[in-house]
């Protein structure tokens, strides 16, 4: 363990970073977004499998090379947005991004709130240079959702600042 009270490297986050969930290329994804943050070197590809009517995300996966924060964020994302509507996923992305962009001294996010265990990433606010690491998979998701609503496909995304 790094430290009992490290505000960034929480145990749950390290667990996702060391053992990422839904890591790998699924067969027949409907949407693929290759995202990268060239300034850090984080690269995450996000895959969505949609329900037949394209209204719901059946499952999502990711691959790529990234730091612990970005990897954990992607891993937690894929566990969170399973069997929910595109709208619900969009809302989650929005909530997540607003959470991590609050000022460093804002009160801690609530683990029992709608974001659930994603609140473990809230500590990233205290480390402004890492906000974009946590944000990358969610930016990819936002782009993927837009694509999903217009028929799916593959695209890429380069994020710069957050």
């Amino acid at each position, binding site marked *: 363990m790094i430290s009992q009270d490290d505000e960034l490297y929480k145990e749950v986050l390290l667990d996702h970073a060391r053992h990422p969930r839904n890591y790998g290329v699924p067969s027949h994804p409907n949407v693929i977004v290759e995202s990268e943050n060239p300034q850090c070197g984080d690269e995450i590809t996000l895959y969505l499998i949609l329900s037949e009517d394209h209204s719901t995300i059946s499952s999502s996966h990711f691959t790529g090379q990234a730091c612990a924060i970005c990897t954990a964020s992607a891993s937690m994302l894929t566990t969170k947005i399973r069997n929910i509507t595109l709208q619900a996923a969009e809302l989650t992305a929005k909530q997540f991004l607003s959470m991590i962009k609050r000022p460093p001294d804002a009160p801690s996010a609530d683990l029992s709130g709608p974001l659930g265990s994603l609140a473990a990433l809230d500590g990233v606010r205290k*480390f402004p240079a890492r906000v974009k690491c946590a944000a990358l998979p969610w930016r990819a998701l936002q782009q993927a959702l837009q694509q999903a609503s217009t028929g799916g496909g593959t695209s890429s995304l*380069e994020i710069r600042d957050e």
Partner: protein
Amino acid sequence: MSSIDFSQFLLPDKLRDEFPILSQLVRGQPLVYLDNAATTQKPQVVIDAITSHYREANANVHRGLYYLSERATSAYEEARQVIANYLNCSSNKEIIFTRSATEGINLLANCLTQKLSKGDRILLTEMEHHSNLVPWQLAAQQKQLILDFVPVLPEQGTLDLDAFEKLLSREPKIFSVTHISNGLGTVNPIEKLVSRARSLGITTIVDASQSAGHKPINVQQIACDFLVFSGHKMCGPSGIGILYGRQNLLEQMDPWQGGGEMISKVTLETSTWAEIPHKFEAGTPNIEGAIGLAAAVKFLKKIDLQRISYHDQTLAKLAAQELREIPQVKIFGPLHQQHPPEYAGILSFSIKGMHAHDVVALADRKGIALRAGHHCNQPLMRRLGAASTARASFYLYNTPNEVNKLVQTIHWIIKNYLE
């Protein structure tokens, strides 16, 4: 001096205590620093902001993942926010740190002329500082553009607004104008000029080198596209300046300089750019310069920029009233008149039969710092028929007593040199 008690309207003399340099003797006399249009003195809070940075927070900015780098980065970005607030920008992305006003205009002269074609016109004025003239000459030469100039009415020292209208009909693409003339102290009707030009779709640039830190500035009210100034003329360090640009225009522009910080993805062949404002900040910036400038802005806002403006003006007017009485003295610009058009704390004058160099060198014998010369305004000086003038320019730490000393010294010079 006049018998009215100005002290109740003016800033208190004790403000001087904040400026360590002002307590020194020069050539055995108390320093009377009246070259504020060239550069200003630094209050202790600005010096402290810089030394604290060195002693506590120094690191390179952006992308550092350790404590000092985070601290330096936030200080740098907070400085950007302080400037954005001062100018009432809609976003702090609209603030680019440059080396100086000069660099800001060079950036614009380069980036905004990229897409112009041979024969396109740029409108300037006859009262521009060389920094708002020579960069356009260089760009015009390279891209075969034509420069036009709004004339200055030599008596009043103001722009010829009828001629301005006529020159607009030549359809310039860019109009770049100074807010306040550093040579004459004229305050241009900047909102009116900008709104007229913008209504015709002309890109507008304001050189605020003499107004920043001397007045409140509101870019949304001026409604210009770009605005530049230097930190050292407003209690800040040298080596730091500001370029304000409208977000959408900055986003459309290609970068000027390449290097670290301003890129996103780089291959050997080609690169993509960072978001604004970083796209225009290539290489390690002047970090302590930005921090020092923000400290200066906070200091000036606390005093109140409206009061500073009044203080500068009043001292210049007091000096003008006294000097106007001396037959050998000729005043240039608005303060030449008893009831001047809008003016700032800058007073240009000459003494008949004396070269300005000698006036200024002799004032120095009494500890008074004035500037002599063309004030980087050679074309304006030619227009006024003066090879050079002497200039006294006032700021918040100057006092009515210093105006007195200036007037007495001019009398002394005339008596000793001319008579």
